[in-house]
């Protein structure tokens, strides 16, 4: 199980998952999709950058694959397949982000990344956890950076700016790239810890933790998916879009309660903090 003491202290954890079937399907889908999209030129996910595709082609490909993966929704099955790990962290009532994010970070391509940030600056709450799963084993330095214990920082300064390569509502924006990101000021490289993981391991972190990647400085393309998980009854911010989460698992008592209020709808208004 996850080392919860270390998680609480540092704001992140890594974990080797046992059931990888759904992740295998995601990885296989990415490979198959790239073969169909680029033909014989495509070799492996890690060597994707060697294709030398234009930024437009890359974006078109990533967006099409992002949509395909969100049609499949195997990230949700991944949580179900490894449910005991998540139940230990969140309890038996679990919501999982409806759609996953797909990250493809080519070497030295700064625009493939979101930069160093924390999700609580963008509408998420500190009651949520992000899980990042590499689709290819990462060489040293290829992983996501985190600042340990930064979820406990009491203040930080940000500078908001407009990102020229991301338009509001455009595919890149829908894929998780921000059109007006908030740069956290005063961060030094020494504070950043790069968490490079083998395939099958995951990096989980509080959404209050500062994390990200400016540029992939290795010679392999970083492929990963990430999505957020929360307890169904934990609070969200007012800014989170409706439908961001979908219930994955309900406790027996929660199911019984749902059934009761379905049959006794008039009593529903007496509840506080209804789902």
């Amino acid at each position, binding site marked *: 199980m996850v080392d919860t003491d270390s998680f609480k202290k540092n704001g992140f954890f890594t974990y080797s998952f046992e059931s990888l*079937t*759904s992740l295998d399907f995601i990885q296989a*889908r990415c490979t198959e999709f790239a073969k169909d999209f680029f033909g014989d030129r495509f070799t492996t996910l890690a060597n994707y950058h060697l294709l030398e595709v234009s930024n437009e082609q890359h974006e078109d490909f990533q967006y099409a694959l992002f949509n395909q993966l969100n049609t499949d929704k195997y990230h949700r099955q991944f949580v179900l397949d490894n449910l005991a790990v998540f139940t230990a962290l969140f309890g038996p009532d679990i919501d999982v982000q409806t759609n996953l994010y797909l990250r493809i970070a080519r070497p030295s391509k700064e625009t493939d990344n979101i930069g160093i940030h924390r999700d609580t600056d963008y509408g998420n709450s500190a009651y949520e956890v992000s899980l990042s799963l590499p689709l290819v084993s990462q060489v040293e330095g290829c992983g996501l950076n985190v600042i340990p214990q930064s979820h406990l920082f009491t203040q930080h300064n940000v500078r908001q700016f407009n990102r020229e390569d991301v338009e509001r509502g455009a595919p890149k924006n829908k894929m998780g790239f921000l059109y007006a990101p908030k740069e956290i000021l005063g961060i030094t490289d020494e504070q950043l810890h790069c968490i490079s993981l083998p395939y099958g391991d995951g990096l989980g972190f509080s959404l209050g933790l500062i994390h990200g990647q400016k540029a992939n400085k290795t010679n392999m393309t970083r492929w990963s998916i990430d999505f957020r998980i929360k307890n169904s009854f934990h609070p969200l911010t007012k800014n989170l879009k409706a439908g961001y989460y979908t219930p994955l698992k309900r406790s027996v008592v929660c199911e019984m309660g749902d059934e009761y209020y379905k049959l006794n709808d008039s009593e529903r208004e007496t509840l506080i903090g209804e789902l």
Partner: protein
Amino acid sequence: MKLTSSNSFHNSAPKTLIIGASGMLGKGFVDYLSSIGSDFICSQRQNVDDDWFLDLNCLESINTLITQVALSGIETVIVFAAITSEQQCISDKYLSQRINVDHTCLLLKGLHEQGVFSVFVSSSQVFDHLTPHITANSSFSATTFYGKQKVLVEQFITFRRLNVAIVRLTKVIGAGFALFDSVIRQAKNKETTYLFEDYCAAPISIQHASHALLQVLSSREIGLYQVSGEVDISYAEMGSHLLQFIGSKHLVNEISSKSKGVSPVPFGSLSVYSSSSVQLYQQPFSEVLEHYFSQSEYKK
């Protein structure tokens, strides 16, 4: 407020679940089980009625069914559900991949984890049929999308040592087999019949396939099974035998499959194989015809 409950217990609930009972093979199997008085329950995605709901395109539905199986005491499951049309497999590759491979694997894995024994209905299309009587341990050589998808599921089952038996079937002929029906109709109407001389199969009847599947299901023996017709026979020869069988003097005109843009298939047979004590045999084509007419609207 009504203080009533809709839940009830069924102590004599069926122990076998048939997944994909609305397709040709599944329906034939259901008819076969009904004819011998066997008890079972089916899953379908349409016209559910007394059946259980399963949409193999929907993960939630699969997970719900697995829970339902565990709660109801189902002990054996047979999986027919798949997109079988090669054209559909090609035209919506990712959908067919999801249904025929990914979700089928997740379903079989989920059933395995519940201690359920399953039969996965595979196909001789895991091979290229460039040789006759292909043995069970031959390397995969699928040429069709559908065949390649069956290979992936077979590999998944074998690699993970799931509590699943794999049964490969050659061409299955059931009641209302379109090709036979049209040959008979053309003979009656004195219309010319054109059939491929170089496209072969080793057909088995739906009754033969069902009997073999039931044996494997009842044995609960995991492993590999191959069920095949005795002879490799072209579609033109099948048509001629059919006409001979009904005493018609109507003739079949043999044509090349290439003339219609179809790749020839020189053989269709498998070497009959059973990895357990289940006894299987090669079905002669005459028996296939007997079975076809026993269910067909056309009588001998």
